């Protein structure tokens, strides 16, 4: 099983923000947006509105997206520092 985001060092306190970004690419690869979705998903599960299976599947998808986004961010950072 892939490791979950919550095991990664994330903020101790996560503030819920409104979803501000609607554009498809940002929606897909924006780290705060993905994190917001993950904690919203947690609440849906907490409220018993989605079953285990749906929770796990969506969480896995979001974590994969989070990891991709993180990798993209790292690559961008490396490119920027190389230029300097």
């Amino acid at each position, binding site marked *: 099983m892939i490791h979950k985001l*919550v*095991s990664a060092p994330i903020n*101790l*306190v996560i*503030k819920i923000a409104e979803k501000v970004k609607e554009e498809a690419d940002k929606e897909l690869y924006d780290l705060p947006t993905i994190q917001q979705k993950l*904690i919203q998903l947690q*609440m849906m599960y907490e409220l018993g509105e989605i079953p*285990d299976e749906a929770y796990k*599947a969506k969480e896995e998808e979001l974590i994969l997206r989070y990891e991709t986004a993180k990798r993209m961010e790292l690559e961008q950072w490396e490119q920027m520092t190389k230029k300097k």
Partner: protein
Amino acid sequence: MGSYLYLYGLIPTGEAPEQNPLPLTGFDGSGEIFTIPVGNITAIVCELDADAYSEDVIKDKTNNDMEWLQEKAFHHHETVLKLAKQYTLIPLKFCTLYRSRESLEESVQSHKENMLDIFKLIAGNEEWNVKMYCDEKALKEQVSETNPAIEAKRAEISELPKGRQFFEKKKLDKLIEKELEEEKNKVSERIHAQLKEFSLMGSVKRTWSKDVTGRQDNMTWNGVYLVPGSGVEEFLLQIQQYEKEMKETGWRFEATGPWPAYHFSSFSK
């Protein structure tokens, strides 16, 4: 062909927006979200086609169409979240539908007193969720080294002949497990009690299994708290303080919020 009303939440009419419909998109992805005043209480709803969103269709979709369920559940919660940022909101459960405006009005009327009490309770306050996790290995080491009952047992074993030590050590392991459980509960309950002092109300939710959290450590506590808006900073600082003080002994904290008052706005008593 008729239509249903999908209810997102209820707000005090005194706070109701002048703009109607609201600048939000409805559950079907195209309709409008609008308000229906019922005396002092205003419902925030959207209209849905009765055939496309009949009880049977919704039941079938929620059970068999995971994509649909996820998409719609996100829509519901994101909408409720936006509303809760602007108004004193009683959030409704996902997929709360009424057959007609009359049945919605009737339902609001019949719970009116409770709803008004809830508005008073939640106005200006925030719901926060706090999950506590414990690395049992780290805590076990600590318990094993500092617990007086375990220390006494260990001293007792060292005095015994070698043959008996084996069985007594097994008993000691059991004692350590028991003390570990007690320590986890004691610490979690103490922190819950302390967090409640910062809150108007606090309530305990079931903990999640490792299978669901996917974490190495165990969720030992899952609590929700209704915190006065003016006290949120202090509440969060307290949690940060716990994290700082207890990290070494294997404890982790996760606070999320502010949530709509999901756990403090049940009006059907």
